[in-house]
């Protein structure tokens, strides 16, 4: 799906936009890298929003 966030939006902003709270343990992965909450999003780059998991 496509999501519109403001220019310079961070990972945190994206999760807020998607109504995903911190306690839900989401992880944002872009181009194979796990991003931190303050990392900035780039326009047009596919983003994977997943839930963190410890193994299995």
């Amino acid at each position, binding site marked *: 799906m496509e999501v519109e966030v403001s220019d310079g939006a961070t990972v945190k902003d994206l999760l807020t936009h998607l109504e995903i709270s911190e306690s839900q343990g989401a*992880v944002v992965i872009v181009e194979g*890298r796990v991003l931190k909450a303050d990392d900035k999003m780039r326009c047009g780059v596919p983003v994977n929003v*997943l*839930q*963190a998991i*410890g*193994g*299995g």
Partner: protein
Amino acid sequence: MKFIRVNMNEGTIRVEDVPQDYVGLGGRGLSSTIINTEVPPKCDPLGPENKLIFAPGLLSGSPLGNTSRISIGAKSPLTGTIKESNVGGTVSAALGRLGIAAVVIEGQSPEGELYFLRIDEKGDASLIPAQEYKGMRTYKLVEKILEVYGGKTSVLCIGPAGEDRLTAASIQSSDVDGHPCHAAGRGGLGAVMGAKGLKVLLVDQRGKGAKPVADLEAFKEANKAYVKIIKEHPEPGHLMPTLGTAALVAPVNSMGAFPCYNARKGVMDDWEKISGETMAEMIKERGGNPTHAGCAQCFIHCSNVFVDKEGKYVTSSLEYETIWATGGMTGIADLDTIARLDNLCDDIGVDTMSTGVAMAVAMDAGYKEFGDREAAIEMVKEIGKGTEFGRILGSGPAAVGKHFNHDRVPVVKGQGVAGFDPRAMRGNGVTFATSPMGADHTAGNVVGLCLQGKLDPMQAEGAVEVSRNLQITTAAFDSTGLCFMASVALMEPEPQAVFRKAINAILGTELGPDDFPRAMGIRVLKAEREFNRKAGFTNEDDRLPRFYYEEPLPPHNTVFVISDEELDSTFDF
């Protein structure tokens, strides 16, 4: 608590109090300590000097939930090292309720003889000749056992692979529905059981009741907090009952750390077709069960029941490591084929991980094409038939590499790796290289820390320390019978203190933060490392195969960069 010692040479059984040196130990701590104390390190793993230990966790059979893991230990015929392979199901709680701390199988029955070891509701053990079950596959076997001995029976058993003493043979454990679909898969312990002449350990579930709790009031309080922590944690509380461990397929591919096509790539083509999300949808649509309790006293429900297009049972708990090994490594992006392979492996009694990696090595050597579904199914069927190739495949990836004279074999100490590539997740490279068990995904897995943003998966600095601490904690948790899914909620100091309170209340101990998990975990690892040293293993064995250091893994195109010196400091404690 008592020990049951079974001498297979003479067919005798001895019941004894827990020997003083072993008091306070359970699960992995107990199985590894017994092996290090009693098994000659250089013995033939398939000979009479080896011992096969069944040790329920310290808390198994107590009223604390999610503590139903049993540790099975021996000298491994696959790795030559000490081995602990733990498994869920119902048997651990059943043994715990009977007050049995360990069942120790010694010696070897006369060639060609086969037995069941039965433990009845009073805890009395007997050996029962079982010639008529020779060669029987596990599903039919358990069905017959439940007919004869009643539905309240827990089963650990081997299939034809174990009887054939194949070094990737598993010991299968029955779940709450009586399906032998959980596996103590790693290390070829099924071959040890087969070499002993033991087909089945069956345990009556109607023991005296839960283990006595030393301090009931303290337990009630700790239990309430324990349940709350686990239920409110996003992983065991939400993700596990929704997708199970298959939830890992998406993030590990997204990170480029999903070893596929015999670890030639880090992202699989069409991985979405085998993701946890796809699996859960498929199961729901077909009328299976995506949220299933596989083990006794489980309130997480990470298991699932996978059904075919007609809604008929195929396998239970299709798990991440099986999906990765039999699907990712072989390039088969099809869950129906993967589920069929899982069922075949469970039925024949062979480790899905070793088998998947072994098939990938065969494909890489040009024996079959990657992605060939029918070829994969036929290959596994050959293990069950006991053909020459089947025997090689059932002996694991290293045996297959040797057969094809193909040196690109992803194993450490002879055991196939797990579904996290060390070139893109370096901390797991440290664990795979150094674990006393050989490459192992449960010995100290860093994937959670990577996904929580606490560890950069590419970062080499600090990876050894992270692996060390996780290996220590895991060794301690594996001694309690706690399941991995619950343990992820108990990694931080505060929840760990709650778990410690529960342990102390149940056992009447006074373990402090230094005692558990740290001191207990170190004690276990030291015993395991000591055994391996005496068996002839050195630091040179704590290494990954060369290709991890030389061949970049797409898409990041990185190699494993942690030096030998750093790896050798993993157990500096």
